């Protein structure tokens, strides 16, 4: 701080605004950039506002612009890292691996350990088994995992590598010990999205690591799904502990993705115990907190003969359903503590709901979050008008259509699947709503719309959130999570109102201290 000031050191926020740089940019623009005239830019801006442009945009068939989805391996990474001493291993190109690690690290602000066998051109021609043998051996020697969870990238999938055979051969040839568990999943990026990858990896790990012994234990499994709120894992554990229920949380990344700064780095930290994983098939039931993220896994659980419950514990009704599911499966009453928390959440909503009712929202993100948040917004009296999932599926659309009928607030809800952020952009211009719930990427939509004269306000809920810190630490599920979401939503509304009324001697008659 002090020394920066002394030496007059400026960062990029300030440095390039100095006259010297301004001149440099101007000079470059006028001489070499064949700059587009200002009025031409304004003309295009106006065109972007037109219905015509919107219709052209929505009739796009080939081009996808700013899709709000990631690919399968990214989801597989999150599923796999939640198991004890498990190495996330990607069979395919090294670049994919680097991307996923970066992307996840930027969200969690934590290192994300994962490795790849770095397939190259010769592997593309002759098959990737050599990379796999060498990769598994090196990874095992170097990182000493107790389990390696293998996923694939597109490259391996296009040439059709047989993971099962490769892993078996790697063991037979002595590259890795015979008894080292190496569950795998095929996760081509060109099919589905990160939520499908999560499902495939979870399915792979469960099906290959656990088999029912015939005996059913009085215990329930919990699968959270592709959930990037660390607090959610802790919240579900706390809730189950309050119930006094015996449970196994299948994939629990809450330690490794939120580890303390205590002077040492642990590559493996916390996670679901492997012995629990092996016994998971013997639990009498499983509760899944996401639906569209766990389709294949649900099938497996049913094959295991388990009582399978899917709930979406976002908001009051969603959490009520979770409570009833736990209570119903275990025969235990809802603990008084949780009943009190429910009362607090309802109290918090009633403190704020009159600022939310009648307000209109748009959402873009993952389908499970879309469902839970839309329902919660309606519980708050808000109106989700545009709900968009790039990776939405038909069954999701059907569910959303049913949800609309449950609330009068759902009257104007439009549900879109397969649409990208550029679709959202022109849709919001044509059918404007003031609040958008989305990811960090949506700040561009916010800025674009603001620039075009639409006062859009972004509320960051979802994945990824790269440009705001610590939001991922909180919980958005359960009654506590309902309060957290409410806090973000209602305070964003106040920020919006304050911003809208702060005009000196123009609109500040409504710039109030009490809201």
């Amino acid at each position, binding site marked *: 701080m002090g020394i920066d000031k002394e030496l007059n050191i400026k960062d990029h926020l300030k440095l390039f605004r100095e006259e010297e740089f301004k001149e440099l940019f101007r000079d470059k623009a006028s001489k070499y950039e064949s700059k587009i005239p200002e009025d031409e830019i304004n003309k295009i801006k106006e065109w972007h506002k037109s219905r015509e442009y919107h219709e052209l945009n929505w009739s796009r068939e080939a081009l996808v612009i700013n899709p709000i989805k990631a690919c399968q391996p990214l989801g597989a990474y999150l599923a796999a890292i939640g198991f004890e001493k498990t190495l996330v291993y990607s069979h395919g190109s090294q670049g994919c691996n680097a991307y996923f690690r970066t992307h996840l690290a930027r969200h969690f602000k934590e290192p994300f350990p994962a490795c790849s066998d770095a397939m190259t051109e010769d592997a593309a021609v002759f098959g990737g088994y050599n990379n796999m043998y060498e990769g598994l051996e090196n990874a095992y020697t170097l990182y000493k995992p107790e389990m390696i969870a293998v996923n694939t990238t597109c490259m391996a999938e296009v040439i059709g590598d047989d993971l099962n055979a490769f892993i078996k051969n790697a063991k037979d040839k002595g590259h890795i010990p015979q008894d080292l568990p190496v569950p795998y999943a095929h996760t081509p990026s060109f099919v589905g999205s990160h939520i499908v990858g999560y499902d495939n990896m979870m399915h792979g790990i469960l099906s290959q690591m656990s088999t029912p012994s015939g005996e059913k234990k009085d215990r329930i499994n919990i699968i959270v799904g592709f959930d990037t709120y660390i607090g959610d894992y802790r919240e579900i554990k706390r809730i189950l502990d309050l119930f006094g229920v015996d449970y196994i949380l299948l994939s629990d990344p809450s330690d490794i993705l939120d580890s303390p700064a205590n002077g040492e780095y642990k590559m493996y930290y916390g996670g679901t115990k492997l012995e629990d994983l092996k016994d998971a098939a013997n639990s009498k039931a499983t509760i899944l907190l996401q639906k569209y993220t766990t389709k294949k896994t649900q099938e497996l659980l049913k094959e295991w003969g388990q009582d399978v419950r899917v709930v979406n514990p976002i908001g*009051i*009704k969603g959490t*009520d359903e979770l*409570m*009833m599911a736990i*209570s*119903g499966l275990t025969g*235990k*009453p*809802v603990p*008084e503590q*949780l*009943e009190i928390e*429910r009362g607090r959440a*309802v*109290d918090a*909503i*009633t*403190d704020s*709901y*009159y*600022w939310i*009712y*009648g307000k209109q929202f748009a959402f873009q993100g993952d389908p499970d979050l879309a469902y839970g948040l839309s329902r919660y917004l*309606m*519980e*708050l*009296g808000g109106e989700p008008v545009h709900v968009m999932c790039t990776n939405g599926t038909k069954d999701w659309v059907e569910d959303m259509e049913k949800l609309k009928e449950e*609330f*009068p*607030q759902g009257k104007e809800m439009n549900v879109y699947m397969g649409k990208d952020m550029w679709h959202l952009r022109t849709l919001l211009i044509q059918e404007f709503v003031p609040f958008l719930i989305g990811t960090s990427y949506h700040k561009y939509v916010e800025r674009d719309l603001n620039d075009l004269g639409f006062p859009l306000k972004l509320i960051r809920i979802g994945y990824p959130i790269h440009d705001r810190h610590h939001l991922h630490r909180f919980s958005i599920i359960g009654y506590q999570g309902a309060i957290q979401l409410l806090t973000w939503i209602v305070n964003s509304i106040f920020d919006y109102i304050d911003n809208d009324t702060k005009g000196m*001697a123009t609109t*500040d*008659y*409504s*710039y*109030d*201290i*009490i*809201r």
Partner: protein
Amino acid sequence: MANLDLEQLFNESNCNINKEKSEAERKKGCTKKAKPGLAAGGCAFDGAQTVLLPVADAAHLVHGPISCSGNSWDNRGTRSAVSQFYRIGFTTDVGENDVIFGGEKKVINACKEIKQKYNPPAIFVYSTCVTAMIGDDLDSACKKASVELGIPVIPVHSPGFVGSKNLGNKLAGRALLEHVIGTGEPIFTTPYDINLIGEYNIAGELWQVMPIFRDLGIRILSSISGDSTYKELTYAHRSKLNVVICSKALVSLAEGMKQKYDIPFIEGSFYGMRETTKTILSIAEALGDEDLIKRAKEYTRKKEEETKERLKPHISLLRGKKVLLYTGGVKSWSMVFMLEELEMEVIGTSIRKSTEKDIEKLRHAFEKNQKALIEQGGAKDIIRIMEENKGDILLAGGRNMYTAIKGRYPFLDVNQERVYPFAGYDGLVEIAKHMVNTIYSPVWKYAENSLFMESAL
């Protein structure tokens, strides 16, 4: 100590109760003393600020320890397009030394600094419990400051201990009558000049009814005191008619102006279609202009038709819903009419801050079916009445809002912190919209059922 002349303050010849009282009783006034040990409402200081704080371009200096200013700082929903100056919290921040040696000098010095920094047209100086008890001579301090600075410095004798908020309203009214009204002259006058008394532009309600006056060619000469300037108050005595909006608070000011300046006054309300129309017609009649009366009749008829049309979709959702009104003053009855216009059923209303006249109106309104007139309020009573009558919504103020929420009743804030304006024809549509939103909010469904019981079964 506080140099109060209660006798004069309660000189309300129109009041039925006063008429029946003996001379001696009348002198005591009718302000109710708060019962020790009970949760009570605001004090006289708070009441004085209610009336005067909306004078937006004046400085409001609180002569007292920090919390009088600190707790009231920018706490009212009164709005002004004139200036946001009134939102600045000025205080002498009286400390231990001042208590021992007196704080008059501090008042003068504070006024000097205000003048230097902001140069406002006037300064209101409020006394508080502490400064009244230590015997600061506020009148003389203000006089000195005023002479020295060349701007009016108005003492407002409003120590909290003298009584309720309502008494504070009257004290502020007296300060206006003694020190402000009659000290200036308007540039011109018209035969259609009126004052609105007791409309504080909470949530912009004054603005909501202003188009009505504009359309009819009636000029609001002085608004006492919503969205007002100091200057417009100084020439309030040139108006042809005073229209008292919140009757209990400032009817004494209207009485005073009648005696001093011979300005007649009427009481009115802008809550609900019928009351708004009635108020407008009585203003027209009081001004006595045949053409105006004709126009007003035509105008209100048209407005009512329009409003009825706009209300239709809301009424279908509100019809028969049971509402408990817990508010004060003129609202206690005028809002009853308003709610009945929405075809809702009023199960009770509070009368704690209402005048006898207000109550009379209520008795009349409730003649057919005996409803609860709540004298002494409180959270528990509210919830009890809601329970007994299976109420659907509670209309009250911020202090009771959180209680209602505990009782899990839909709630709409109709008091000082209300967020939305409900005055005039537009206000009726507005309140209908908000009641629909609140009654039909899905949250109440969740609030009702207990998971605990369900899961145990």
